């Protein structure tokens, strides 16, 4: 029994990690700019498609016809050589194999530019407008992003292979000194969980231990006073929006081997991430992270066959159910500060 529970706990971690990363970005944007960003899921999706694009770029092949070799049917054989491999040799092969993690290098600048452009171009005009209008404009932006991706990459999911060395399952039970082959867990999910942990830790460290982070935190607490001290707080908040976009994008990149991305993957995650933010408490960064993992794990437990036998369909609605209960019983969420969006 303990093994079963432990396994379900592990199963919730990777999804929880994705929820936590998206919710973290949402909360950063809400805490700094006060904007309810319905386009955040689209940023997750754009990140995932950065990985797709990167892979398409590096697997670009040259096809030469080799007349000396013949196929079994007697036709000249086509020789396909990925350009990267002809240029870089063995390193090229590694690059193709580890395309998903390497595409983070592409994702970071792309998402940073998209995020900053979005904030400067459109969202900055909406600070003073009601939340309903912020929701509407970001919702419109999300549709636009989604449709652009759909028109370039098509409506079908595009599977991304896991790196060769990270396929298969890890025998976690044996590592912890338990019986072998009882608790096995796909390695990539473990990687995703660790990755989420590193990113979350990085964001917190950045906010906690750098001067920039100090100023941003001060701005979150009292924007006007920080502005009066002669600090250009708007520019820092813009950068924070870019950072949130990067976090969402990286979360999307690393999730591609687990779930082949299609154009509406962002919206699927967005609805859940909003629920996560609300459960954690609007504007609370630790709340977003904790609620993300909590809901991921809860969802994993709810999809156990034993539990589904008692309450059919619970795995489909558990997250929403928790959100409804939390909103009604404790409106500011698990970790929310008093007075922040407590209406």
């Amino acid at each position, binding site marked *: 029994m303990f093994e079963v529970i432990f396994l379900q706990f592990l199963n919730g971690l990777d999804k929880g990690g994705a929820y936590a990363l998206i919710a973290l970005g949402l909360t950063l944007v809400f805490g700094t700019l006060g904007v*309810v960003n319905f386009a955040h899921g689209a940023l997750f999706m754009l990140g995932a498609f950065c990985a797709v694009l990167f892979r398409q770029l590096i697997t670009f092949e040259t096809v030469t016809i080799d007349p000396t070799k013949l196929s079994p049917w007697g036709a000249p054989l086509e020789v396909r050589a990925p350009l990267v491999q002809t240029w870089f040799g063995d390193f090229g092969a590694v690059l193709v194999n580890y395309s998903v993690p390497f595409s983070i290098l592409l994702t970071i600048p792309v998402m940073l530019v998209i995020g900053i452009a979005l904030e400067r171009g*459109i969202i900055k*005009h909406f600070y003073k*407008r009601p*939340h*309903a*209008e912020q*929701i*509407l*404009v970001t*919702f*419109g*932006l*999300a*549709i*636009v992003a*989604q*449709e*652009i991706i*759909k*028109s370039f990459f098509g*409506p079908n999911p595009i599977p991304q292979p896991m790196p060769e060395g990270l396929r298969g399952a890890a025998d976690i039970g044996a590592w912890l000194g338990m019986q072998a082959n009882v608790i096995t867990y796909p390695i990539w999910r473990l990687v995703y969980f660790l990755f989420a942990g590193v990113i979350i830790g990085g964001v917190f460290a950045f906010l906690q231990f750098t001067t920039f982070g100090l100023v941003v935190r001060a701005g979150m607490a009292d924007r006007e006073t920080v502005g009066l001290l002669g600090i250009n707080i708007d520019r820092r908040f813009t950068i924070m929006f870019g950072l949130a976009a990067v976090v969402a994008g990286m979360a999307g990149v690393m999730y591609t081997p687990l779930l082949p991305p299609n154009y509406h993957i962002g*919206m699927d995650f967005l*609805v859940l991430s*909003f*629920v996560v933010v*609300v459960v954690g408490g*609007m504007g609370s960064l630790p709340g977003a992270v904790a609620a993300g993992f909590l809901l991921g794990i809860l969802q994993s437990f709810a999809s156990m066959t034993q539990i589904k036998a008692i309450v*059919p*369909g619970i795995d*489909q*609605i558990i997250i*929403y*159910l928790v*959100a*409804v209960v939390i*909103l*009604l019983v404790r*409106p500011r969420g698990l970790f929310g500060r008093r007075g922040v*969006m407590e*209406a």
Partner: protein
Amino acid sequence: MLAMSRNDLLLFLGFTIAVLAMPIWLQPFGAAYPDLLQRFTIYAILAVGFNILFGLTGYLSFGHAAFFGVGSYAAVWSFKLLSMDAIPAMAFAIVVSGIFALLIGYVSLRRSGIYFSILTLAFAQMSYNLAYSVLTPITNGETGLQLDLADPRYLDRAFSAAPAGLPSPTLLGAPLTGYAGFYFCAGFLIIAFFIAQRITGSPFGMMLKGIKSNQTRMNYTGFNTKPYTLAAFVISGMYAGLAGALLAITDPLAGAERMQWTASGEVVLMTILGGAGTLVGPVIGAWLIKYFENIFSAINDSILTRFFAFLPEGADHVAVTIASKFVGEGWFLTLGLVFVLIVVFLPGGIMEGVRRIVGLFNRSGKTPRHTPAQVQPAE
């Protein structure tokens, strides 16, 4: 009921004539065929109902499609169990969606602002997920609920023997296909519009507008605002149920995708595009979106090539390639862009645009009758 002001009466009469004459004045636009006209009226009812909630009280529901879907399911079940007549189907749909809205509204309205939006979204997603999974016996899951030869139809069977083949919905024995179906829906749109107009002008409507501009002050004045918002929520849910039932009457089939949050988003788009808080705006928004959805989705590359044929060689290829991203499959891209532009530049929708243009011409003459609805909440 007859105590309408002259302006209201003119608006109502004008609207009635416009709706009834749709098969005529839509002829030049190539949209005057019953199937599309039925959709025009049905989505207009949905948008008018949504506007009673969002336009008057300011509560932005992101889960309105749930009521639409429930209405469809209820109507199809009435077809299956009771009778192929449209009236019991609609009555059943309105009652069921009203009860559903009462339950969801009672819970969701305990919060306001973004929390309300998220709560309604959560409830709608829950209904959608359940309709797809556990509730398959009721909703028939992915296939969608359809009529079946083995349906009992107790009321019909009490009067007549089972006909051969699948029956289609009727109104007191008369078939509801083609233009008959359109005029049936149009009649309900006119009634729905009339009720919405009466609500807007009534003390109840004033109360709702008061809630929109400053709920706190309403509470301080001694009003309990909760019953009013709940009533608005239920009324607008019933409108959605009626629209869903009409959709099921014109095409007896109900699927879960009608409840998905993209469908809810579409209603929001219609209302905002036309102009939230106005009477005619949501109707215009619904018509425009459904019209352009129909037109744009039908355009393909060969039509575009003919359209851009006047351009020099090469340039027309570029134009076709760019334009083809925005039509056909890409219609939603156009919709999203238009929507963003509307929210950024014209938050009041098309009706505000009209008002601004009228204001330009009126500047020299007498002062405009409508004072701008700028409400400055006193802090």
